[in-house]
């Protein structure tokens, strides 16, 4: 399908049409800051009303990851007593993620790789394959914490079905897949004209000039720089401020570590095995029976996270482990920044 144009005023009707077919998740306004009412806080939600969709959003605490991989997910159900008869719980229904920023599109690709690799995880993948992604291009960085340009997530080439580019009172609509074509059929669009193409081009140029590199080196050197920093005193210094609260991991769109536990109904008749997000920054994460904890020190845990994001995940999945969205820094009460850390280690040894 050739590029189309959707008038901003027709967005609501499109969302409504999409909602008639399946659930639609999109950023909505969550609240305004108590101390500064102009400071708007957004969050991803299944949309209750098309009018709530806010494509002018900047950052969210959690990314759209939660729709693909719920924070708490039941894996297996079984009976207690004689016949356990364990069976997998794989629940999914078609849904649309509307307005996914480039960093999150990239992050989803990392999760796809992690969950499809070696032993595939149908609990994630079934939801994923039932997901349509409508991307939304960014013209300027969300805030100081973002460094998506550095992490190579600003220009995703795939991982979306449709890409929207905001052009003032309209969206430039590019279709990337067959599914995307079906989605756009539900919208009132018109083919893009030459002017639209030019406006789109202008957006791209402006985007190029609005984003700046923040790391003093190229991404491809990051694993090496991390390796060289393993014994650096930097980790100890940063970790002194770290609460080991796990907020950074929970907010991260590419983190996929989890804990597994069993839940039993009060009448003791049935149970299920559940997984929930876990965090490598928490004390007991690497502890084994006998009390041995292989990452007892805050500093070693913090280092592990920085390594995982900058090196291990890349080595494991072939996709970036950090997309530079800045969520961990925003979520961190101590103000620990992965971007600043990556800058700092370049000069440390």
């Amino acid at each position, binding site marked *: 399908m050739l590029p189309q144009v959707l008038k901003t005023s027709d967005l609501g009707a499109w969302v409504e049409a999409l909602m008639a077919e399946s659930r639609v998740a999109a950023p909505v306004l*969550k*609240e305004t*800051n*108590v*101390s500064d009412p102009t400071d708007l*806080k957004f*969050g*991803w939600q299944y949309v209750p009303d098309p009018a709530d969709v806010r494509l002018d959003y900047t950052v*969210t*605490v*959690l990314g759209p990851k*939660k729709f693909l991989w719920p*924070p*708490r997910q039941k894996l297996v159900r079984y009976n207690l007593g004689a016949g356990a008869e364990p069976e997998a719980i794989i629940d999914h229904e078609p849904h649309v993620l509307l307005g996914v920023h480039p960093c999150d599109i990239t992050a989803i690709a990392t999760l796809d790789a992690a969950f499809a690799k070696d032993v595939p995880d149908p609990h994630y993948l079934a939801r994923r394959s039932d997901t349509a992604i409508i991307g939304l291009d960014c013209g300027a960085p969300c805030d100081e914490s973002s460094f998506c340009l550095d992490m190579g997530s600003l220009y995703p080439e795939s991982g979306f079905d449709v890409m929207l580019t905001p052009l003032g009172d309209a969206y430039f609509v590019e279709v990337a897949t067959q599914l995307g074509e079906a989605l756009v059929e539900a919208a009132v669009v018109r083919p893009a004209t030459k002017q639209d193409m030019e406006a789109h081009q202008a957006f791209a140029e402006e985007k190029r000039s609005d984003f700046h590199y923040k790391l003093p080196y190229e991404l491809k050197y990051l694993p090496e720089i991390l390796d060289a920093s393993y014994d650096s005193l930097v980790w100890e210094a940063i970790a*002194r*401020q*770290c*609460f*080991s*609260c*796990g*907020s950074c991991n*929970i*907010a991260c769109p590419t983190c996929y570590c989890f804990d597994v536990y069993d839940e*039993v*109904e*009060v*009448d*003791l008749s049935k149970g299920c095995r559940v997984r*929930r*997000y876990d*965090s490598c920054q*928490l*004390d*007991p994460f690497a502890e084994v029976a006998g009390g041995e904890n292989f990452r007892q020190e*805050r500093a070693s845990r913090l280092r592990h996270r920085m390594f995982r994001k900058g090196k291990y995940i890349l080595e494991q999945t072939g996709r970036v482990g950090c997309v530079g969205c800045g969520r961990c820094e*925003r*979520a961190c*009460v*101590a*103000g620990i920044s992965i971007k600043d850390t990556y800058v700092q280690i370049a000069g440390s040894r």
Partner: protein
Amino acid sequence: MADKPTLAFFSLACCEGCQLQVLACEEKLLPILEKADIVRFREASDGDADHYDVTFVEGSIVTAHDLERIKEIRAKTDTLVALGACATIAGVNAVKNFQDPDDVAAYVYGDKKEWFPHIAARPLKAEVPVDVEIHGCPINSDEFLEVVTCLLMGKPYRQPNYPVCVDCKLAGNVCLWNKGIPCLGVVTRAGCAPLMCPSAGHKCIGCRGLVDNPNTQAAKDVMAEFGLTVDDVLREFRLFQGIYDEVAKEA
């Protein structure tokens, strides 16, 4: 444990809100009533027994009489469960511990203060061995049910050992610190979700006590960056006592 274990509920100095949280389990209590006998629960019925398999005690020890009672209760009990902040970390009762005890009594009862002797508020574990702790002011009904389920199955209950931040992020809340409000969630033991304060837009006030191994130094540093004085910080931490000890030590 006998075929049908016996459960008992007691309260010492407290608001009895934790027992209300037990009642708030509503129909979910029914399967428990099938599996166990509640032999003592004054908020719902009367009756008593000589021995309890599991006893839930809410409230703090604040008088010599409370001290006697908890020892009696302990002697009749197999598994003692401390219910709520008052019982686990002394809760709000301990606020008075940081004032002159005589002045405290005089302020409320004037020249009749001698009629009402009291001792420093303390949690159950300060006087008797406690087997399971359910934190919170008030406790979370879901956690209560989980503990009872574990006890009925004979498996140990493991309390959450991570800070409130985790659940707060999972709920997608905007961090209160980002809104300029110092919140104790970073060092407070989780387990209150989904009814946690930050989800209602309010800072965590630390009612579940400290998580194991908290970085209180970082907490103080961060609070200082927010322009809070040591006094402010202590006051924040002091509301539910448990938290106070750690910070006071370092202050």
